[in-house]
Structures are given as structure tokens and as C-alpha cells.
């Protein structure tokens, strides 16, 4: 018995895979759309991002003149928009050029490919990351450098979240900020560019000054790197959840429970 299925055909969606190959890219598209959409909305609000002593991580560091006095840095006066927009370029750049997110959105939004062994558009016009704008993905390490500064401010803001008007204390918001910092740190420490710069670029550790230490550092970053996808998702979801929590407290929807 013969079948006329054209198994050698190329073209969008062509595959003889019989499993639900469309489910992972669809889930990623919905997930990234949902959390990316929320973050964009929150960044554009320009209000309800501070509930003393908690500052939303999407607004950290708060460097515009419109920021509340307790957390204001520099106080840039010429900026009329939401203060979060000033820092969004770094955060978007860091996540947008991240090797994991590249895989995620190339598959989910550009369908390039939609899934492994599934046909796609474009044929031989494909250029990958060889030309503009995609060649700019090579700047990932510069966003990494810039994000170190933001990470330092986030660490400061998290510590600040434990100091209330009456001194040191712990509220639910303090714990939320701490978890957020841990997840963001896990994501940051698993960065592929960091893994390269910290020791991956060394071939001969025993013939390089400080080679053993760099190899240990490389191994440490590799541990986080193996779970980079998980850190990327957990940190993305939790940064939105942290903003939502602080936003609701700032709006007076509920009070932040003080644990001690």
C-alpha cells in the first residue's frame, strides 16, 4: 500500500511530527506576551510604584525628579515621562539579547523555526544574525555590564525594604523583594556572556595567571547557566508579581502585613 504524503516538502508548518509541537511555542508566546505586556503597562503608569519602604523593581533606580524623596537619585528634571522608562532600555536590552530569550522569541514570534523539524517561511532569504538588526545581538555583554549597575541598586532597594520609619523590620513586602532579588541574581549569574568573560574565554587554565580561580568561577556560573531558562522565567514572572504587590499596597487595596 502506498501513501501520497509528500514527506520531502518544505514550507511553513510542513512536518510529519504527530505530537503537539505547536504547544511550547504557543505557551511561550502567550507567557512572554502576558508578562512583557504587564511590565510595559506598569512602566508607563508612572505612579503607585512606591509604598514606603518598598520600591517596585521596575522603577529601580529611580533617577527622575518626580521620584519620591526617600528613593530619589540624581533627580533628573528634564524627564517628563515615567521614571521607569529611563532604565527600561537596559532591562529590555539585557533580556532581549539574552541567549535564552532569543531562542524563545525566535521560535514563538518569528516562527524561525516554530519547533524542531517543522517547516518555516522565507526559504533561502534567511540571514540569521549576520546582518542588521540581528547582528546587534552581539552587544549582549554591554547590556550585562549596564545591568550590573541596576543589580547593585536593586540590592540596595531590597535592603531598604527592611527599614521602616520605626527602624529595622520585616514585612511581607520585604520578603517579596528579597525573593525577587534572589531570582534576578540567579538569572544574572547564569548569563552566557558572563560565563564566557569570567573564565570561558581561557583555553589553558594552568598557563594563565589566576587560571584556577577563573576555572572555579566559570564552574560556578556554569551551574546557574544550566538552569538559565528556569531563572529567566521565574525572575520575569516574579518581577511582575513584585511590582503588582507593591502597586496594590501603594493604591491602598490592602495593607502590607508586618511580620516583626
Amino acid at each position: 500500500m502506498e501513501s501520497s504524503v509528500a514527506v520531502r516538502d518544505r514550507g511553513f508548518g510542513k512536518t510529519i511530527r504527530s505530537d503537539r509541537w505547536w504547544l511550547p511555542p504557543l505557551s511561550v508566546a502567550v507567557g512572554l506576551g502576558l508578562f512583557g505586556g504587564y511590565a510595559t503597562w506598569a512602566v508607563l503608569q508612572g505612579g503607585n510604584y512606591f509604598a514606603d519602604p518598598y520600591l517596585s523593581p521596575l522603577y529601580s533606580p529611580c533617577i527622575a525628579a518626580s521620584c519620591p524623596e526617600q528613593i530619589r537619585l540624581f533627580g533628573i528634571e528634564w524627564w517628563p515621562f515615567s521614571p521607569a522608562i529611563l532604565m527600561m532600555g537596559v532591562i529590555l536590552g539585557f533580556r532581549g539579547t539574552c541567549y535564552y530569550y532569543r531562542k524563545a522569541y525566535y521560535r514563538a514570534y518569528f516562527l524561525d523555526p516554530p519547533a524542531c523539524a517543522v517547516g518555516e517561511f522565507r526559504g533561502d532569504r534567511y540571514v540569521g544574525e549576520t546582518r542588521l538588526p540581528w547582528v546587534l545581538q552581539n552587544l549582549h555583554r554591554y547590556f550585562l555590564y549596564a545591568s550590573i549597575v541596576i543589580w547593585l541598586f536593586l540590592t540596595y532597594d531590597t535592603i531598604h525594604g527592611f527599614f521602616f520609619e520605626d527602624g529595622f523590620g520585616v514585612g511581607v513586602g520585604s520578603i517579596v523583594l528579597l525573593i525577587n532579588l534572589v531570582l534576578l541574581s540567579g538569572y544574572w549569574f547564569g548569563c552566557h556572556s558572563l560565563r564566557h568573560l569570567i573564565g570561558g574565554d581561557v583555553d589553558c587554565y594552568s598557563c594563565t595567571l589566576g587560571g584556577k580561580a577563573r576555572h572555579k568561577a566559570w564552574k560556578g556560573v556554569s551551574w546557574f547557566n544550566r538552569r538559565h531558562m528556569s531563572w529567566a522565567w521565574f525572575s520575569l514572572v516574579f518581577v511582575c508579581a513584585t511590582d503588582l504587590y507593591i502597586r496594590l499596597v501603594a493604591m491602598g487595596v490592602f495593607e502590607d502585613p508586618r511580620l516583626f
Partner: protein
Amino acid sequence: MAERTFQVYRGSDDEGRLESYTVETDQGMVVLDAIHRIQAEHAPDLAVRWNCKAGKCGSCSCEVNGRPRLTCMTRLSDYGEDEPITVTPMKAFPVIKDLVTDVSQAYRNNASIPRFKPRPRDADDGWRMQQYEIDRAQEMRKCIECFLCQDVCHVLRSHGKHEEFIGPTYLVRTAGYSLNPIDVEDRSEFLRDAGGLGYCNITKCCTEVCPEHITITDNAIIPLKERVVDRFYDPLKALVRLVRRR
């Protein structure tokens, strides 16, 4: 013993069809066993490439139900009893006959890689290295050249960039050279230009199909991409190189 139906690709690159065969199957059989039974009982002219039947020679690569796999390592019990099993040749390569493909372009890509270039020998006329610093290169040496990663790579499979892009198999080979502690060759320019590393958009399908579980994307391709960035896209590194040269 249970009967199972297999759909097997028959034909050449220009013209082919799926043909159905029903054979008795035994417990523990793999897809390659079934193909051999089809050859023995129904189609003695069915072409299939195989050798070790132990997942080490990389000869029996095909697509089973649309997924690139070694047929000798794919158990029939991985599929439901009533689920039809379709066996087709690797889509990224031209078909010679039935399940046998022409992978000669991949060997030409291999020949284009700048060879391994060791540093001068140490004082005792050998090369000393520590195990911990050779581990990364040894992971790449596990490659059995089954070409499943080349087959699933969309740059080759869907976009046909065989001439412009050496593909994951040979990026693994290149990483095996470049990560070796005694190698001194700089392959950045080759990787950017003739190797076509920029075509890879790191969608990780190669890692998913590797039967040797080499973490191709994270441990071979991305480190090579970062080395290309060091050399061509990082002005800070360029400045450091300039200062060191002076």
C-alpha cells in the same frame, strides 16, 4: 509477538512515496530491527545505512515520526501500540535511495575548518595539561557524526545554507579544537565568515536531538559566538588588545 504497521519512505530525492509494511514485532525491538525485518520479508531492495546497532557509529540516522533519531536506539515501545511509525530519510540531505542520504557536503564543511595547531612542546617533549581543563574539549569528542543535529538545524533543513554554514556537527568539532588547552589557532575569522556562525539563531534543536547528549548550543556554539564577539564586536576588548600590543 504483535503485528505493527510501518510507513517507510521509498524513492529518490526527486520522487518518493511512503509505503506501508506490516510485520511481526517482538519485545525489545528497535526501529532498525523492524526495518531489517521489512527488508527480509517484504522489500529486499529497501536501502538503509547501518553498522554497529549500538548507537556509536552514527550510521542509521533517519527520522522517526518526523523526529531525527538513531533508528538503532529508538525502541518500538516508545510509541503507542496503535500508533503508526513513519520512517523517513534525513530531510536536510539529498536522498540517494530510500533511507540513505548523501552527506558528502558535511564532509566538505569539515575540511574547511582550520586544523588543530598545538603550541610548542613543553620541556619534556610532551604537552602537560590538567584533566579539569581538558574536560570541555572532551565533551566535544563524544560526537559520533550521526548528523542528526545537521538534519534538525533549520538553517540547513529549511533554508538550505549548506555552503554558507558548517552546521552544528562541525561547530562541535571546531569547539573541540578551540577549547583544547594546547591549541593556539584563532578560528574567529573563519567562524564569522566561511563558517557562517551568525546564521545560527541558537534555537537549540541540535542539543535536543543529540544522542550523545552533548550540550551543543550552550557548550559549543555560544562559547564560539562569544569568541567571535571578543574579536570583532567588542570595542573594549579591541582596546585592550591594542594596549597589550604596544
